[in-house]
């Protein structure tokens, strides 16, 4: 009925323990459990092997233009993380694109999620199916069709078209993610706030928004990653504009400097910090309440 017991949030950063999550759970007999743990550990190793490789190679001093064979240890790459001007510029451009696209997509997507989960209206079902389509369309089709659109209209490809494209594939994603979080949400709290004298705007900022905020934050984090990492759609819509992944791909034809790894590691570190802060602040809130 209430948010706490609402739909299990399918978003990692914000996965809440289900009610009574510290109930004892069984993973079968001791043997099965041991095998399972072994598989899990191996899976984690596999997941982190390339990451380890990337981080280790930030300390490599490559002989040629490709930082892919281990030569000798150095700290120089970290002294000059922004040494490669092209790469650095592309890196910042990627951040800008992601920031703008995520902001717009969050606004649009959250509104869609609110509309779908709190109203019944004609076209409800059609809208839901329509929303899923961009998610189930291969990226290459999204990119190719936008390429055709822009080309046909004589639109010059560049930063703007890349942002437009990113917003397009993020809107559905945000809407679905926030909607999953809002499923089971008890909208009468809005009535309650209004009943207590709050005008619609105050109802939104004091009640609705704080309640859907965790869902929005989770969607924001993941869509930021999606935008930052996108290659295929960006490649079709970018024109002369290069983002970080594009620059890495293009530069790979002639060089793969250690700064690529350094910047990738920087993103990783920032992400890790966000991941640690998120649960911590949540735990604190829980502790204060308990």
């Amino acid at each position: 009925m209430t948010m706490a017991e609402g739909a299990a949030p399918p978003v990692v950063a914000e996965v809440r323990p289900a009610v009574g999550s510290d109930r004892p759970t069984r993973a079968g007999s001791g043997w099965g459990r041991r095998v399972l743990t072994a598989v899990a550990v191996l899976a984690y190793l596999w997941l982190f092997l390339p990451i380890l490789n990337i981080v280790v190679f930030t300390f490599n001093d490559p002989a040629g233009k490709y930082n892919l064979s281990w030569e000798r240890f150095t700290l120089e790459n970290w002294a000059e993380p922004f040494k490669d001007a092209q790469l650095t510029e592309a890196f910042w451009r990627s951040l800008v694109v992601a920031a703008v696209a995520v902001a717009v997509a969050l606004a649009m997507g959250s509104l869609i999620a609110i509309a779908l989960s709190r109203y019944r209206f004609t076209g409800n079902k059609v809208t839901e199916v329509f929303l899923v389509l961009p998610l189930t369309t291969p990226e290459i089709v999204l990119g190719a069709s936008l390429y055709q659109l822009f080309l046909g209209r004589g639109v010059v490809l560049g930063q703007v078209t890349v942002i437009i494209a990113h917003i397009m594939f993020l809107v559905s994603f945000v809407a679905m993610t926030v909607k999953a979080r809002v499923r089971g949400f008890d909208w009468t709290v809005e009535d309650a706030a209004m009943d207590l004298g709050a005008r619609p705007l105050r109802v939104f900022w004091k009640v609705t928004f704080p309640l859907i905020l965790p869902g929005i934050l989770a969607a924001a984090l993941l869509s930021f990653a999606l935008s930052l990492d996108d290659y295929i759609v960006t490649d079709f819509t970018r024109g002369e504009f290069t983002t970080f992944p594009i620059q890495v791909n293009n530069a790979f034809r002639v060089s793969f400097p250690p700064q690529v790894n350094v910047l990738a590691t920087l993103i990783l570190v920032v992400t890790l910090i966000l991941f640690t802060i998120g649960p911590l602040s949540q735990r604190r809130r829980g502790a204060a309440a308990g």
Partner: protein
Amino acid sequence: MAAATTDDTGLRRGRFAPYGLLSPGIIWLLVFFLVPVVMLVRASLSTKPSRFAEPVFSWDFSNYGSALSEYSDEFIRSFLYAGTATVLAILIGYPLAYWIATCGGRWKNFLIGLVVVPFFTSYLIRTIAWTSILQDDGVVTGLYRLLPWVGSDGRILATPMAVIGGLTYNFISFMILPIYVSLEKIDFRLTEAAADLGCTPWRAFRKVVLPLSLPGIFAGSLLVFIPAAGDYLNARYLGSPQTSMIGTVVQNKFLVQFDYPQAAALSLVLMVIITVLVLIYSKFLGTEGLAV
């Protein structure tokens, strides 16, 4: 932001509000998703008089014929690789998600977060890192060559194995998350109840937990299969000319050969096949699980 009613009898104040809330996002999707796809359909039915000329719309269905006949290998390979990667992702992702859900205790959130962290480094850099790890003179390939059926000149890079491995690796988080979410919802006292009724743990898993987590597996399968089937970067970096996928062809036809009609036809065939799969899926399981 008019007051919504949750009354079963009707939604007076909500009559226009939902459309107002929907319109910015939906209009965006109409203009930048639906219209382009329609234009793509148009392009797929066009002919190009010469290489650098504008395509002319002509109800030319031959693009589809040649797309299917000339590139059937790439289509089959794409779906084969994507399918294998999906199965592998289930085989690796399910035990991991299950372990986190059952043994994670209060570290659950951290452990599931850890699954996603690798995916915050660039996809491309991760894939290039794999080329470094799997290089012919490297440790991993060295170990691989010790396997009895692998010769001393065996390699991992530039083989279907590497491409499928890359696809599995790059999309596995889309498998683990939905499975984890569906497992999280399960009350594991049910397995105790099953054990109480004389089930072995394995049987309890098969009869109780697995069926309840099926929606997660299905959602994850789609979320891995779709991007994997359209991918071309794994094939480019980890594959060989014999492992090229349909995405490679589409990309090349659009951006290198300027053969828009055929490229459009190829994209649409890919999209139609996948849409059919999605429709079959949503008919059975709804679309809710697709939100990750």
